[in-house]
């Protein structure tokens, strides 16, 4: 069986609050010796632009950096840019990149960016979502989360959260921000960037790279189990929970439940990811969705461990766990066990 994941180029989305240091992070990433074949898509070349020396610049705002990477300014829509990159790579017109990093603007909603990879057949065939990294600035983060919608969504959709400027903000403020972020997204591991230094291994190869279904890969992708439970304050608006089903379900049970949720509350279904035990399938189905859109499911070669239960993480806006569990019971006739 062909491994449909193995040949796809990983795409990382670096998002984050205004002034949270996205460009700094990307610059650090590109300085790693093993990050020498990256295509970076940025919105603009501002004063804080990629600080690598530019070696060749085309009139069309695509440039080679001296470490071999390609930097390309988003023109028009992302879909076209990603398609163009694939075609030019195949033709050997640009570098043979092995990874794409997309830097969003500070005010961007990452959901449409993620959805671009799910809706376009060509992009789906050639790229895969690796990781959404959200940067939160410890100095201004709390206030931004209170006063703006975008940072809340950026944090809720993240696979990894990096707190920057903790050295300036101090421990107390940083701890408060961390607790707030954890309440928004308990699954996403959080790390602090100390003196601008970030453990880059934390940020890459988060998404599933192949269909082998190794336990460590699955755990890395699914994120941290929400073991904090009632011990920490959950956000009033953003809900995060994991549903488990011990018994296999039919594909119709899963997909129809998701369709109903998507149709009625699509914009409030921020992110869904998990493994589904579909009756009569050998390996688990990997499912992931952003709002009303789902990526086509991929069946892994085998279950990662003896635990064959379905587990699905939901991050929603004001949709409580009970509602989703009840829908599964009503539509799919399956009962969540935890």
């Amino acid at each position, binding site marked *: 069986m*062909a491994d449909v994941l*193995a040949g796809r180029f990983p795409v990382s989305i670096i998002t984050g609050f205004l002034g949270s240091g996205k460009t700094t992070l990307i610059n650090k990433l590109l300085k790693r010796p093993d990050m020498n074949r990256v295509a970076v898509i940025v919105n603009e070349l501002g004063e804080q632009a990629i600080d690598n020396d530019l070696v060749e610049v085309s009139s*069309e705002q*695509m*440039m080679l950096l001296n470490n071999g990477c390609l930097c390309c300014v988003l023109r028009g829509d992302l879909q076209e840019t990603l398609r163009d990159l694939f075609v030019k790579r*195949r033709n*050997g*017109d640009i*570098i*043979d990149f092995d990874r794409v990093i997309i830097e969003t603007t500070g005010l961007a909603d990452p959901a449409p960016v993620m959805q671009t990879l799910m809706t376009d057949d060509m992009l789906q065939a050639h790229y895969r979502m690796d990781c959404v990294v959200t940067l939160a600035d410890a100095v201004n983060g709390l206030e931004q989360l209170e006063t703006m919608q975008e940072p809340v969504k950026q944090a809720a959709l993240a696979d990894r959260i990096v707190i920057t400027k903790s050295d300036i903000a101090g421990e107390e403020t940083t701890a408060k921000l961390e607790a707030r972020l954890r309440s928004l997204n308990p699954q996403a591991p959080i790390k602090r960037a100390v003196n601008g230094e970030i453990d880059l291994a934390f940020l890459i190869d988060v998404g599933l790279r192949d269909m082998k279904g190794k336990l460590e890969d699955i755990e890395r992708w699914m994120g941290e189990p929400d073991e904090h439970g009632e011990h920490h304050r959950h956000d009033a608006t953003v809900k995060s929970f994991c549903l488990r089903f011990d018994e296999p379900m039919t594909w119709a049970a899963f997909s129809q439940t998701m369709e109903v949720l998507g149709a009625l509350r699509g914009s409030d279904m921020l992110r869904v990811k998990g493994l589904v035990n579909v009756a009569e399938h050998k390996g688990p189905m990997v499912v992931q969705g952003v709002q009303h859109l789902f990526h086509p499911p991929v069946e892994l070669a085998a279950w990662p461990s003896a635990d064959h239960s379905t587990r699905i993480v939901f991050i929603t806006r004001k949709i409580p766990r009970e509602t989703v569990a009840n829908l599964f019971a009503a539509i799919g006739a399956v009962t969540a066990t935890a």
Partner: protein
Amino acid sequence: MKPTMSPQSQAAQTISRNMKLVSHNELAGFGGIGEGINMQVAKDGRRILWLAHESAPKNFTGVDVTDPKNPKVVVQTDLPHEGVRSNSLDVVGDIMAVAYQTKKVGDKPAGMDLFDISTPEKPKLISHFDASGPHSRGAHCVWFVDGEYVHLTSGSGDFEPTHPNDFQFYRIIDVRNPSKPKEVGRWHYPGTHKGDKEAPPPRHPRFDGGYRPHNINVYPERPDRAYMAYLDGGAVILDISDKANPKMVTNWKYSPPFNGFCHTVMPLFGRDLLIVTDECTKDDGIDWPKLGFVVNASVETNLVPVSTLPLPPVESFAKRGGRYGAHNLHENLPGPASFRSNTLVVGTFFNGGVRAFDTSNPYQPQEVGYFVPGAPKLSPKGAVQINDVWVDEKGLVYAVDRFGGGLYVIEMTV
């Protein structure tokens, strides 16, 4: 967005998708390989890849690829003089057939050698099949898969073509006694032999590649069929159920309008399809398009092309140096170390590297992988010229450069 790289820097970089380099071997400085690759599983278990060289001074090279990460040259042999090339070989068990083609008619050695390669380090000549003659340049290609017959693209001492470019034809050589190979049948394109009642076929108006067979493929699945690429004559299928009297079943002649030099006709058994490739023979895109066709062969007497293997645009590759276009395929040979698939097709495209296609939907074949090595050191063309490919039963891809690049061992992840 415009390219940000010059043709030279484009040719310098390795590009790949779903294919990863496992190892590279320059074959002791003689890295110019022709279009003969076959893998022997020796009695001691070693896996020996046999490679026929593109041109003199070397004849053939045996590479131990038991550990594909560390290929080792175990033997490399010399040709008697600069006026002869080997180009093609095949292996069955411990017997290897090697073709010899001379630059000039009348020259020797012209024909085929059979070697005993039971000790790979010491190939022993069993016999020489002489195909020399006043109008012959010997043999260009061998097809030897059953241990009994060699299907040979060759001239012969008694064959005088009607046009000097048509100096080779199809000869069936019985090698059941390898010490005494003998011809048991032959076929040539009507009108190419002096004395034929048919008129000589028309010459290609732009690129007269000639009317000669290139590859002649005969498979155990259809021992009564020879699938033959006849250069400017296109694809030919022969009925060889009576080896003494081969008969033409069909001929798909598509040049002109195309630019001739039909190179390989490979059936995909069970699917009634053929993959027909051209050979690009000119540098800088002069003879483009040189394609791989997917052909519906469900009615054998009415071959209908239904698609071509999708390639990157000629504008991107034509000026990188050397040739760009179709050439050899991995031909699904029988044998213990040969990959066989009736959907996945792996081919070579000179500076377009080695490329893999999924033909599950014959109307829309998909490219699923490619590996284009950066220009080899001192490459006379300034770009790689991937000439031939072998895929082993584990899916490892062995691709060779026509000039100095040697052997590239590639892992395919499709």
